[in-house]
C-alpha cells in the first residue's frame, strides 16, 4: 500500500511545490489548508464578503486539482487562538517579544495537525519548510539547516524531537527558493510567482501593539515610564507591549544621542533605554528547552553556536542544560542584544541540536 502523507498547504509557492513533490514521489497525498486566524483581516472580509473565502485556500485547491490529490480546508481556529494567539498576547503583556511561528509549529503543525494526520490514516506530515531531515546510520534523525541559507527555517523547528522527525517530510530542504519557483512554473502551478508572505499571519497589518490592545482588557496593559540606565524618567508610555529589545522608534524621548530599548520590566512598567553599546550581554538564560535528540547529556558544558533571533547569524557559545529544562548560555565573545520571549536555537555546524525560549539576559554583575 502506498504511504499516505498529509501536506499542510498555505496557498503559497513553497507548500504548493512541497505537495507536488511528494505527489511525484508516489505518496498518497492529502492536502489540507488550516484555517487559523481568529479574525479576518478587514480588507479580505470586505473584498470577499465572508471570513473564510480566502484567496490563498483557492490557490491551494487549484494546486491539488492540478496535481490530482484530495484537498480539504480544516478549521483549527480554536486551537490556534488558545495555543498561539493567547500566548502571543500574554508574552507581549509580560514585556517579552514572542515568536508565534515557533509556537505555531510546535503547537499546531507538529502537534494538532499530526493528530489529524493519524485520524486520517496518514503516515507522514509534510510542509514547505526549508530545512532537512537526515536519518543517520546510528538510527537517529538529524535536523539540518536548509541548503538555501537565505531561506533556512530550521530556527522555527527546534521543538521537533525524534518522534516528530521520524514522520515528517520537508521536500524543499535541499532546494533554493529560485529552484522552488522554477519547479512551480515547470509544474504549471498557479502559485509559482506569488510574493513572499512577511508578516505574522494573524496580524496582517503588522501593528502588533494594536492587536495586543484589542485582545486585552485595559487592566492587563502595563503603562509606565521610559527610563535611562540610571533610572531617570525620560518619558511616559502607554504599555510595555509596545516595545521590544533594540527598538529605537516610539520611545518618545528627545535626546541628543540615539537611545535603544535595552530592558523591559513588565511589573513596574519600566522600559529602560540605553546607548547602542549598552545592549550587549555576555549570555542568556533560556527555559522550556527541547532537544532534537535527548541523548545530549544535561549538566555537561557543550560548545555550540546559538541563534537568538531568526534573522541573526548563529554565534559561538557554551551551554549548560540543567535538569529543569533550563539552559545557561554564554557567548564566546561580545554577545548581541538578548530579547526575552524569542527562541534561542542551538546549532552545531549544519545541525540543530535543540533550543528554548529566552527568559532573560545575563548581565556582567551576575556572571560568576
Amino acid at each position, binding site marked *: 500500500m502506498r504511504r499516505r502523507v498529509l501536506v499542510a498547504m498555505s496557498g503559497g509557492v513553497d507548500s504548493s511545490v512541497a505537495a507536488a513533490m511528494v505527489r511525484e514521489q508516489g505518496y498518497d497525498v492529502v492536502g489540507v*489548508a488550516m484555517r487559523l486566524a481568529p479574525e479576518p483581516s478587514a480588507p479580505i472580509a470586505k473584498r470577499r*464578503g*465572508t471570513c473564510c*473565502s480566502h484567496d490563498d485556500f483557492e490557490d491551494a*485547491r487549484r494546486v491539488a486539482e492540478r496535481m490530482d490529490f*484530495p484537498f*480539504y480546508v480544516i478549521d483549527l481556529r480554536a486551537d490556534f487562538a488558545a495555543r498561539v494567539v493567547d500566548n502571543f498576547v500574554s508574552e507581549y503583556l509580560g514585556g517579552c517579544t514572542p515568536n508565534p511561528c515557533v509556537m505555531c509549529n510546535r503547537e499546531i503543525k507538529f502537534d494538532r495537525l499530526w493528530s489529524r494526520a*493519524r*485520524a486520517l*490514516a496518514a503516515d507522514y506530515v509534510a510542509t514547505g519548510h526549508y530545512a532537512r531531515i537526515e536519518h543517520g546510520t546510528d538510527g537517529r534523525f538529524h535536523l539540518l539547516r536548509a541548503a538555501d541559507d537565505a531561506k533556512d527555517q530550521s530556527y522555527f523547528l527546534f521543538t521537533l524531537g525524534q518522534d516528530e522527525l521520524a514522520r515528517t517530510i520537508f521536500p524543499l530542504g535541499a532546494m533554493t527558493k529560485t529552484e522552488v519557483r522554477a519547479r512551480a512554473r515547470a509544474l504549471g502551478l498557479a502559485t509559482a510567482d506569488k510574493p513572499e508572505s512577511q508578516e505574522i499571519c494573524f496580524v496582517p497589518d503588522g501593528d502588533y501593539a494594536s492587536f495586543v490592545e484589542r485582545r486585552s482588557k485595559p487592566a492587563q496593559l502595563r503603562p509606565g515610564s521610559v527610563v535611562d540606565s540610571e533610572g531617570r524618567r525620560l518619558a511616559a508610555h502607554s504599555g510595555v507591549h509596545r516595545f521590544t529589545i533594540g527598538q529605537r522608534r516610539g520611545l518618545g524621548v528627545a535626546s541628543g544621542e540615539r537611545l535603544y530599548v535595552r530592558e523591559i520590566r513588565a511589573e513596574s512598567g519600566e522600559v529602560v533605554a540605553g546607548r547602542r553599546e549598552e545592549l550587549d550581554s555576555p549570555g542568556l538564560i533560556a527555559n522550556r528547552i527541547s532537544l532534537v535528540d535527548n541523548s545530549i547529556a544535561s549538566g555537561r558544558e557543550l560548545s555550540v553556536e546559538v541563534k537568538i533571533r531568526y534573522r541573526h547569524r548563529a554565534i559561538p557559545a557554551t551551554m549548560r542544560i540543567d535538569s529543569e529544562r533550563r539552559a545557561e548560555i554564554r557567548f564566546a565573545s561580545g554577545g548581541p542584544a538578548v530579547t526575552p520571549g524569542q527562541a534561542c536555537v542551538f546549532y552545531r555546524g549544519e545541525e540543530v541540536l535543540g533550543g528554548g525560549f529566552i527568559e532573560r539576559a545575563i548581565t556582567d554583575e551576575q556572571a560568576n
Partner: protein
Amino acid sequence: MPIYFDHNAGATVRAEAAAAVSRLLSDMGGNPSSVHRAGQRSRRMLEVARAQVAAIVGAEPRQIVFTSGGTESNNLAIFGAITAASRRRKIVSSQIEHSSILAPIAELERRGFDAVRVAPDSDGRVDPGRVLAVLDSETALVTLGLANSEVGTIQDVAPLASMCGAAGALLHIDAAQAVGRIPVEVAALGCDLLTLSGHKLGAHSGIGALYVRDFARLAPIVFGGPHESGMRAGTPNLVGAVSFGAAAEAAMNAMAAESVRIGSLAASLLARIREAIPGLRLNGPMVGRLPNTLNLTFPGVLGESMLIALDLEGIEVSMGSACAAGAVEPSHVLGAMGRSVADARSSLRISLGWNNTAQEIEAVAALIPEVWRRVAAAEPLSEASAR
C-alpha cells in the same frame, strides 16, 4: 466507486432525467416564447415538463413557476408575498430553516420588517400552536420547511393553513427536501406557495419551481419579459425543466417502493452502527422523519475529521454547511434543537437516495465504526479545543 450518501445536498441525477436531457441537447433551439415552429416545439416540451412537475404535488400546471432552484423559489415566495401584501410587515418562520429562507428574512429585517423565528423542540418539530401564538393581522407570510434538510424532521403543517387563512396571511411551504421522498399534495397542505427543487429529487441542478395558488397575491421579483405568467422574467431554462419533469415523473412513480426500500436501508445502517458505536445519538425524531436522512452525533470526535476520513475511504457524507472556502460550520439546526456547539461539531448527516444499494449499506456499516474508532483514538475531542 465512492459511495454517495449526500442526497439532501443534491441527489444523483436519475437515468430518466439524463436521458431526457441528452435527447433534448441533440435537438435543441428555439425560445419557448417565440412564434416560429422551433419556438413552439420548445414551448411544448416546457409545458410537458410543467405538467410533470405539477403532478408530483397535485397542482395545476399553470400554478407552477419555473425558477433557477429552491433558493430562488424561496426568495420569490418571501419577497413576492411581502411586496404583494403591501400593508402587512411581519413574517413568521422557524429557527431551523434553510439559509435560503433565513437570509431573505434577515434582509427583510434589515429593511425594517418584523420577523419571528419560532423555536423547535429537541427533535426539530415546530409546534403549530407556537406559530398561531405569534400570528396576527400584521403577518403577511408564514414560511416553514416541510422536511428539514439537516435532520429530516417532518413538520405537522396541516393546522397551519386554516390559521393562516383566518389571519389573512399567506402560507409558504419549503418542500425542497420533501418532494419525491414523501407524498406532498398542495391541496392537502392547503398552502398558498410551495417550493420545489429539481436536483433534490434527481434532476440536474439549476432548476426549481414555485407552486403559486393565486397569482394575485404574489409580486414578481425579477422583471423583464412576460415569461412564466409574468411571475419570473427570463428565457426559461428548457434543459433544466425537461430534466426536472423527467425526474419528477420518475420519482413520483417510484416513490412508494423507493421510500420503503430507502427507509429500511437507513434503518439497518443506523442499527448496525449504533451497535458498534456506544453513545451514538440520532438527531431528530424516530418517527416523522424523512426515510433517507440520518443525522448522527458521533461521541468524542470532530465531525470535520470524520467527514474527511470517510471521504478518503470513499464515503461521501456531510456536516452542517460548508463555508465559501470549504471548511464546515456547525449546524444552526442542531443548535436550535438545543444541542451544544460541541455536539453539533461532532455530528454528520448521512442522506440516502434512489441509487443506494444494500451492498453499499453493508460496506459502510462496517467502515463507519472502524473510521470512528481510528479518529477517536488519534484525535480525541478533549485534545481539540472546543469552541
